[in-house]
């Protein structure tokens, strides 16, 4: 095993934080509260496991599924319920191996970078011999359908069922050191359970039969990539089938995708090459829609921004802003990251809270903004939906006398301007900041972090400080790394903004199209 330091450490913090594991009277372990998430080792390459349900496969065209797997770029595809057996039909169409846990006569094994190993358990095989033979300090991952969640609101308890058998089947070194990817847990659900052989880190990539009430929207199993690092750290990322292939082109829904396929356009590349009048001739497309679809396809294939409207960008040098919060429904903005200048050479300022009650960083931000940066437009990606209202709400609560000054600034959301107002077609496979900037050639300096993880790290720290008898004794998180993550985001934003400006400067007469489809901003974009 890989020294086991990180997971053992995690277990130790668990106890120290007071979230002791609870044992039920019948002896089965309940889910334990996990503490601060582990951050991936800088520079380590993860094993990428892509959970895909049969229901998703059944609902989408083979071209879309091909594009989906390309976008996910996994080492292994894992077939998940509902209808997991349908996924194996993909087998010959995709490169990575498809593992179907619970099926077959012997465990299947696949490999990833840095000697990473993925093992898929069958229904009841003896895995000891196989796993004993597989060692080293590589990332390792067990995929199974052997665990399930049950939620009972009347008993007010949640339990993971099948743990005792599961532990029995795995040799000890595979308990704490591996990531346990489960197709019978909800995609994206990460939890740590404790037990006699140490903690198990579970990650869902499918659907649960547990009744989760108003908390879940979908029962088809959202396609999700799990990245497993050598120290056992795990990150998850959803990949939306509606954001890839033809469906990933703005204004193309299921009906239009079908029309386009029937007309012989099966890839985004085909669309980018097409003449707008030919698209319009297929029926179901107005001329301006055809033009904007073609422009959107060109943006994707050429990895560039294509101007589609005549709206103007703000005058003046923008101030790029990104806030880090404690979750989607933010009750704090503990870090306001600001970039003053361009994507490469701009100066990065991090206004960060010093302790959980501290709000002086907000004062600091406003002092700088209304002083050194007075009169300049404030730019944030998806800012109208997230960053701007969060900042306004925080100021109203903590610095009411600053609220008006903030309200008087010129706030600009380039996502809204490009997508909702139809001024530009963007190249990303989704409209997430990282996806758009990545398509434009931007590369992050920090890997393996996302807004959700950063929020969790912050919340874990805040909780520990507020619970601790001596707050000063609580280990701080790697602030610098979190600030760097935020810096990545504002630099990504500046990259996009430069491209928007460049595209607006190019000759757009032939491409000008009206759009304004009025879609609401995606709330999944935060951080």
């Amino acid at each position: 095993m890989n020294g086991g330091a990180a997971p053992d450490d995690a277990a130790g913090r668990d106890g120290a934080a007071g979230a002791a594991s609870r044992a039920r009277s019948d002896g089965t372990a309940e889910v334990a509260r996990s503490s601060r998430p582990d951050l991936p080792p800088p520079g380590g390459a993860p094993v990428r496991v892509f959970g895909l349900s049969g229901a998703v496969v059944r609902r989408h065209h083979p071209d879309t599924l091909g594009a989906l797997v390309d976008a996910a770029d996994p080492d292994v595809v894992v077939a998940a319920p509902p209808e997991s057996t349908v996924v194996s039909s993909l087998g010959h169409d995709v490169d990575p191996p498809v593992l179907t846990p619970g099926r077959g006569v012997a465990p299947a094994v696949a490999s990833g970078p840095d000697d990473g190993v993925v093992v898929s358990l069958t229904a009841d095989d003896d895995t000891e011999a196989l796993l004993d033979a597989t060692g080293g300090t590589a990332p390792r991952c067990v995929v199974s359908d052997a665990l399930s969640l049950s939620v009972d609101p009347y008993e007010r308890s949640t339990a993971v069922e099948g743990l005792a058998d599961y532990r029995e089947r795995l040799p000890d070194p595979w308990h704490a050191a591996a990531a346990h990817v489960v197709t019978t847990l909800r995609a994206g659900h990460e939890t740590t359970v404790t037990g006699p052989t140490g903690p198990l880190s579970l990650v869902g990539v499918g659907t649960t039969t547990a009744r989760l009430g108003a908390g879940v929207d979908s029962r088809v199993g959202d396609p999700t990539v799990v990245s497993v690092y050598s120290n056992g750290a795990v990150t998850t990322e959803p990949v939306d089938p509606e954001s890839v292939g033809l469906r990933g082109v703005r204004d193309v829904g299921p009906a239009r995708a079908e029309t386009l396929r029937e007309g012989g356009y099966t890839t985004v590349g085909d669309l980018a090459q097409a003449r707008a009048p030919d698209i319009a001739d297929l029926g179901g497309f107005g001329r301006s829609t055809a033009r904007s679809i073609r422009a959107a396809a060109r943006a994707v294939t050429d990895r560039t921004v294509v101007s589609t409207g005549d709206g103007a960008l703000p005058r003046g040098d923008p101030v790029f802003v990104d806030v880090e919060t404690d979750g989607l429904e933010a009750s704090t903005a503990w870090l306001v990251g600001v970039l003053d200048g361009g994507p490469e050479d701009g100066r990065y300022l991090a206004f960060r809270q010093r302790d959980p009650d501290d709000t002086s960083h907000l004062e600091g931000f406003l002092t700088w903004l209304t002083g050194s940066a007075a009169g300049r437009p404030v730019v944030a990606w998806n800012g109208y939906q997230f960053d701007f209202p969060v900042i306004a709400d925080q100021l109203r609560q903590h610095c009411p006398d600053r609220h008006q000054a903030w309200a008087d600034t010129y706030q600009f959301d380039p996502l809204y301007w490009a997508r909702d107002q139809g001024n530009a077609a963007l190249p990303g496979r989704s409209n997430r900041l990282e996806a758009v900037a990545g398509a434009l050639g931007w590369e992050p300096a920090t890997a393996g972090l996302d807004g959700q993880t950063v929020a969790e790290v912050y919340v874990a720290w805040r909780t520990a400080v507020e619970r601790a008898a001596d707050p000063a004794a609580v280990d701080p998180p790697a602030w610098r790394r979190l600030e760097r993550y935020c810096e990545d985001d504002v630099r990504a934003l500046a990259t996009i903004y430069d491209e928007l400006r460049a595209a607006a400067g190019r000759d757009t007469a032939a491409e000008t199209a009206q759009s304004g489809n009025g879609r609401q901003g995606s709330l999944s974009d935060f951080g």
Partner: protein
Amino acid sequence: MTHPDSSDHDTDSSTTGQTATTDGHDGQEPRRRADGGVADRSGTRRVLSEAVLRDSLPDYRGQVCHSRHLPGEPASTVPADEVLCDSLAGRLETELFSHQAAALDSLAGGENTVVTTSTSSGKTWVYALQIARNYLADPDSTALCLYPMKALTRDQENELNTKLRQDWGLDVSVGVYDGDTDAERKRRIRETANVVLTNPAGLNVYLPRHNKDSGWHRFYHNLDLVVVDEGHEYSGVAGTHVAWILRRLRRILAYYDAAPQFVLTTATIGNPARHAARLTGAEFTVVDEDGSPRGDRDVVLWEPPVDRSALDEAAEDPLADFEQARRSTGSEAASVTAHLALRDTQTLQFCRARQGTEIAARQVVAAARDHPEGGYVDVEPYHAGLGTQTRRAVENRLKGASVDAVASTNALELGIDIGSVDATVAASYPGTKQSFWQQVGRAGRGTSDALSVLVGGQDAMDAYILDNPDYLFDDGVEDAVVSVENDRVYADHLLAAAAERPLSAADAPYLGGERRLRETTEMWQDAGLLESVGDLDAGGVTYTGDARPQARISMYGTGGTEFRVVCRNGEIDHDPVAEERAYRDYHEGALFLHAGQQYEVVEVDETGRRPTIAVRRTQTDEYTQTQSTKRITDLAVEAHRSLAGDYDLYFGTGTVRITYDAYLVREVSTGEIVGGPHPTGAPPLDLRTELLWVALPPDHLQTTIDRLTGELDEELLTPTTRASTDRAVPAAEDRYTYGGGLHAAEHGVIQLAPLELMIDNADVGGLSTLGHDHETVPGPTWFVHDGIDGGVGFAKAIYEQFDTLAARTREHITDCSCDRRRGCPLCVMSEHCGNNNDPLDRAAGRLILDDVLAAVESAPDGSG
């Protein structure tokens, strides 16, 4: 949210007798009729006198079984300047009714106030004046008003605008904010409105915007008053949801340091303080002394005749046998309406039974034609399914007195302005006293005289009321029932609350109390829907589930599968159907009536993201009745009353597994079985729910049978052919007969529960059995359970009112004029019975209830 056909309201200020003088008379002229004549007020009473009826009604057989004259009462008023500051009192041209004054006093004293007075007693005045008062003190002050239905919200917007702006000259900005409001107007309302009018389902989805928008921030920050209008509407499942939405609101308000007062208005209910408290979580002062004036009123009870010679005690299918022998409520009501309309008495007929309003309208026309004074009457149907324009046209014809009669669903119980009619006819009891009086109130509003007729329907409630008319006229009213105990509903609202703002320990007073909050938070953390590293005592717990959980909370169910209803050959505007009802009433092949139209279920699709019930319009003379088997397990006692001897009454939780396995097709007109039993294809349904059970002594079967066959000299019943094929029904005659007694007692208590409680007994189920393996059940028992997963408080309320309900049931079983051992739909038969009303025995049932009541009266704790 609430079904549009099941509500009431009082809005129309034009007829709300706001008096200018202290004598209580509004000085209205007698209404001019279209023909230029004047309705003969004293005559309305006489048109239904025995003499007139005997002479003029072709088939009169003494159907009038009771009539009561209710004398009018003058208004009790208070000068406005005794209650209001001069600057406001000076704007009023009238005095206040005493209850309005009392409510305003209570509000001035800082109390939350519940006003429970009669229909059209001017309850709107109370909160309109409070809004005015708050506005005069602070022009930034805001108020939130919640109404059960969109249509009423628009009505109230007009009413508030008229009062506040036009009559009192205040620059108060009022806006309706709901699904029909466009985005631009919504933005303006958020930014500027003093008064926002919406419904609880809307508030559920708007609440999360509180910190995303400066308009909402302003609104909540300045909120001084929350109005919950028609609070009695919120019971059952919808009530539970509303209770949690209001708690979520209060929690967000606390965060804005806003502590608004609550005004809750309700129709007359028996437990206003408790109901208001359960609904909002706050304490209330009650104002219930009605100071509004009333005119003279006559109420007549009309019993459709039964042809007893046609009854066959040994009928294999007793329900059909009885329906054939009895004149239908619908055609009786039509005769009465026709009779009144022909005598120049404009009449509103309320229909409830299977027959639609269109059919009723045709029946009235036909009855008028057949009437000895025969002639033509102009009759219109009215129901929520009609287009707006059609409805407006009928409303205007009522107001203008240019129509003789209107056959309506209870849609016209609402406060829709139709002026007043001369008489109302109810084709069967509308289910609650509150609703009955609401209907009656449609005749002769204000101080004019009026006549109302209740034509008995075919169930135990109606029969009880015709036999015991005092029930209608005594002071007691039903209790409204709302519960916040359902843990599944609570768990969903906790997610919604977390998405509105991270949860913390300080939320406990609003969100279910310390222990429930902690345990359920932990449950969701473990399930991955709340941030697992968060802590209620430090920093809070953030929501991490899929965005917008509020949008997935349905007001119609407790979070189980919910079906949308689509029509294959036309349009249907039907609320989503919860699993519990779907399996019973919407299986494939089921026939049902909706907004006056009959539909058949053609396909039930439970797979996929949106489970669907596909129906098609149809027109048959049939209806369907579902049969079921039931098993009760996992009993856990929560409350217990030890009665005398070996008798015990329990309340607790348990699992009820119901299999709706087959259905029968019956003819509407005769009740005859014309098809089935057909399989429904529905899987078993498990309800974790609340129930009460009556545990009887182990030897009770024997002692009862001994008395029955000994001192009472009754014979044992012979099992029917059907019963011999039903494994759940005992085959031996003594067990069959005793089982029939238990079954009768169970049915009786459930069917008469609405006499005391405002509950929908279609959502209450029962099971009677000669033995059960739970430790609390040494002998025979019967259960009464909530028919909704998690429970909505119905069984609990029946448990609390058990003594009264059991006594009423005994009285009714004993007195029913059917004189049949196996009973009739007017006493112990139920159309919801999954066992085809077999076995039933009134004689054994009476002995069982006698014993239980004796045990109640001599209970050791003296609780009898």
